[in-house]
C-alpha cells in the first residue's frame, strides 16, 4: 500500500455512480458507508451489461449462431479479464452466483470425493481429519465447513482472535497438523478490517499438506491481490462488492486442483458424456458451471475490473487507507465510542466497526440513517466473532473509492448526534 500514489479525483468518480446523487430521508445527501455489504455500480458497468443484452444476448457455449458466438466471446473475455485482475489464468476462474456458493462448492466437492474416482482422493475427508477455520470468519466461510464436518465426520477446529482483533497464531503448529485437510480463513475481516498473514498460514498449510481456502471477499475489491503470488489453493470473491453486478462471484482454484476436483452442481454444460446410467464431466472451469450461467453479470463484472484497473488498485487502497485512518482517529476522540478491531493502520483495511456506550447499534444506525448516513448494524454475518469480542452487535462503516473525507465527517457527526439523542453525551 503506497501512499505516494496520486490521490483519486473523487468528484469525477462520484459522477460515475448515479445512485450517489440521490437523497434519502427527506432530502439528506446519501452518505453510503455500506460498501462492505454491497458496493454501488458505475454507469460503465450498467452500460456494459445493457449493451450486451441489447446486442449479443444468447446462451453461451451452446449455439452456432452469431449471437451465441458473440455472447460466448463476451463471457470468456470477462473471465480472462477477471483472471488477469487477480493474477490467475482464465481456466482457474469459475463463475459462481456469489462467494458463498464458491465456498460451498469446495466443501461439497470434498464430500463428493468420497464417491468419485481415484483422482479425487486427495480431497476426501472423514473421521480423524480436521478442518481449521478462524473465529473471525464470515458465516459463509464457517457454516459450509461445519456442514462438511457434519456430513463426513471430520472435526472442525479454529484459530482464536486476540483482544485487538488479530488472528491468534500462537498455536499455529498445534492447530494445523498432519491431520489438517483444509485451512480456511479470510484475507481481510469484514468486521475488524484486520488483514491476515496469508503467507504464514499458507506456509504452514503446505508443510502439512493441507489445502488453503481464502475468503477474498473484502480484499480483492480493495487491495491489489495476486492470488498466484499468494500461493493459495482456492479463493473466492463476489462481484457485487467490487462494483460489479449481484448474482456473480468467483471461485479461484489452482489449475492442478480444479482438474481433480469432483463437480458440485450438475446439469447442462458441465458434462462430457451423459447416459441414463451415468455421466462424465467436462474439464474446468466448465465442470463447475452447470446450467445457463449468469452471462450478462459476468460481462458486468468484466467491466467492473476494467474500471477498477483504470483507477488503479494501489490508488484505491491508498485512498481507503486515508479515510480509515481519519475515521479511526475521529471516532477515538468521542467519549463512549469503542472501536472493535485494530486501531492502527498496520495490516488493516477499511472496515470500521464500533460500539457507542448506552446506544444500541440498531439505534445508532437509525440515527445515522436519519441524517443520510448508511451503515450496517448487527453482527455482520460474523456472530462468533462478536461473541468473542464480547459485544452483541456493532455499527460498521465501510469505505470505497467513491467516499471522501466529508463522508467520514458525516459519520462522526452522526455518532455524536446519536449520543445527544439518547442523552449519553
Amino acid at each position, binding site marked *: 500500500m503506497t501512499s505516494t500514489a496520486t490521490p483519486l479525483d473523487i468528484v469525477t468518480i462520484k459522477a460515475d455512480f448515479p445512485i450517489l446523487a440521490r437523497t434519502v*430521508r*427527506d432530502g439528506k445527501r446519501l452518505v453510503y458507508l455500506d460498501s462492505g455489504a454491497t458496493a454501488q455500480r458505475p454507469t460503465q458497468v450498467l452500460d456494459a451489461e445493457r449493451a450486451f443484452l441489447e446486442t449479443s444476448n444468447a446462451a453461451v457455449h451452446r449455439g452456432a449462431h452469431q449471437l451465441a458466438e458473440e455472447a460466448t466471446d463476451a463471457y470468456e473475455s470477462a473471465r480472462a479479464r477477471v483472471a488477469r485482475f487477480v493474477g490467475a489464468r482464465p481456466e482457474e476462474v469459475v463463475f459462481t452466483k456469489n462467494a458463498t456458493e464458491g465456498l460451498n462448492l469446495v466443501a461439497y466437492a470434498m464430500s463428493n470425493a468420497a464417491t468419485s474416482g481415484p483422482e479425487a482422493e486427495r480431497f476426501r475427508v472423514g473421521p480423524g481429519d480436521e478442518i481449521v477455520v478462524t473465529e473471525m470468519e464470515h458465516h459463509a466461510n464457517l457454516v459450509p465447513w461445519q456442514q462438511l464436518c457434519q456430513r463426513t465426520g471430520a472435526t472442525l477446529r479454529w484459530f482464536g482472535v486476540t483482544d485487538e482483533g488479530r488472528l491468534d497464531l500462537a498455536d499455529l503448529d498445534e492447530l494445523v497438523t498432519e491431520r489438517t485437510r483444509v485451512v480456511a480463513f479470510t484475507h481481510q475481516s469484514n468486521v475488524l478490517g484486520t488483514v491476515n498473514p496469508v503467507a504464514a498460514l499458507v506456509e504452514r498449510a503446505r508443510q502439512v499438506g493441507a489445502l488453503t481456502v481464502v475468503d477474498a471477499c473484502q480484499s480483492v475489491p480493495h487491495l491489489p491481490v495476486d492470488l498466484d503470488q499468494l500461493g493459495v489453493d482456492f479463493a473466492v470473491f463476489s462481484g457485487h462488492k467490487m462494483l460489479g453486478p449481484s448474482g456473480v462471484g468467483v471461485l479461484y482454484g489452482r489449475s492442478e486442483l480444479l482438474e481433480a476436483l469432483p463437480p458440485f452442481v450438475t446439469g447442462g454444460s458441465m458434462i462430457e458424456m451423459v447416459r441414463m446410467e451415468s455421466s462424465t464431466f467436462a474439464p474446468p472451469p466448465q465442470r463447475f458451471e452447470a446450467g445457463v450461467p449468469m452471462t450478462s453479470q459476468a460481462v458486468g463484472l468484466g467491466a467492473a475490473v476494467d474500471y477498477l484497473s483504470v483507477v488503479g488498485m494501489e490508488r484505491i487502497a491508498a485512498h481507503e487507507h486515508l479515510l480509515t485512518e481519519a475515521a479511526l482517529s475521529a471516532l477515538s476522540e468521542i467519549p463512549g465510542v469503542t472501536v472493535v478491531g485494530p486501531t492502527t493502520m498496520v495490516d488493516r483495511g477499511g472496515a470500521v466497526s464500533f460500539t457507542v456506550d448506552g446506544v*444500541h*447499534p*440498531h*439505534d445508532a444506525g*437509525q*440515527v445515522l440513517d*436519519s441524517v443520510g448516513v448508511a451503515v450496517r*448494524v*448487527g*453482527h455482520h454475518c460474523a*456472530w462468533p466473532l*462478536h461473541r468473542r469480542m464480547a459485544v*452483541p*452487535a456493532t455499527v460498521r462503516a465501510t469505505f470505497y473509492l467513491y467516499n471522501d473525507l466529508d463522508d467520514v465527517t458525516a459519520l462522526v457527526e452522526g455518532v455524536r448526534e446519536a449520543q445527544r*439523542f*439518547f442523552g449519553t453525551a
Partner: protein
Amino acid sequence: MQLDQMYQEIILDHYKNPHGRGLREPFDAESHQINPVCGDEVSLRVNLDGAHGTDPSATVVDVSYDGQGCSISQAATSVLTDLVIGRTVQEAFDVHAAFVELMQGRGQVEPDEDVLGDGIAFAGVAKYPARVKCALLGWMAFKDAVSRSTGKEETR
C-alpha cells in the same frame, strides 16, 4: 426531525425505565427468542393462573423477562408486560394481534389506544420495516411461552 416519529417519548421512557424486567419465579414456561440479524435476545417467562395452561380464559398472572437489545425491542417488551399482566390469555392474544397488525401496517394502520395502551407509540416504528422485528421480539417470546405452557399440568 423524523427520528421523533419513531422514538416517541413513551418508547424512550420504557427503554430507560423498563417495567417488569428481570426473571422471576414462579413461572409455567419460558421462551428464548433471538433476532438472527442483530443478535438481540429476550428470555421471557409467563405465569398463568388456570387449570389448563393455554385455556384462553386463564389469567396471565405474571410476565418477567431479561435480554439485550435496542430501545425498540426493550421498550416493546416493557409495554407488553403492562398490557398482558392481569388479562386473560385470550385478551392478551387479541392485544398481540392488534399490535402485529399495527407493526406490519407500514404506518397505514390507525392504532386503538383502548386496546394497545402505550403500544400506540410504536405506530412510527411500523414505517421502518427493518425495525418491526425488534418490536415483535418480546411478543414472539410471549406467544411461544404461553404455547409451551400447554402441558404444564403434566410437567409440574
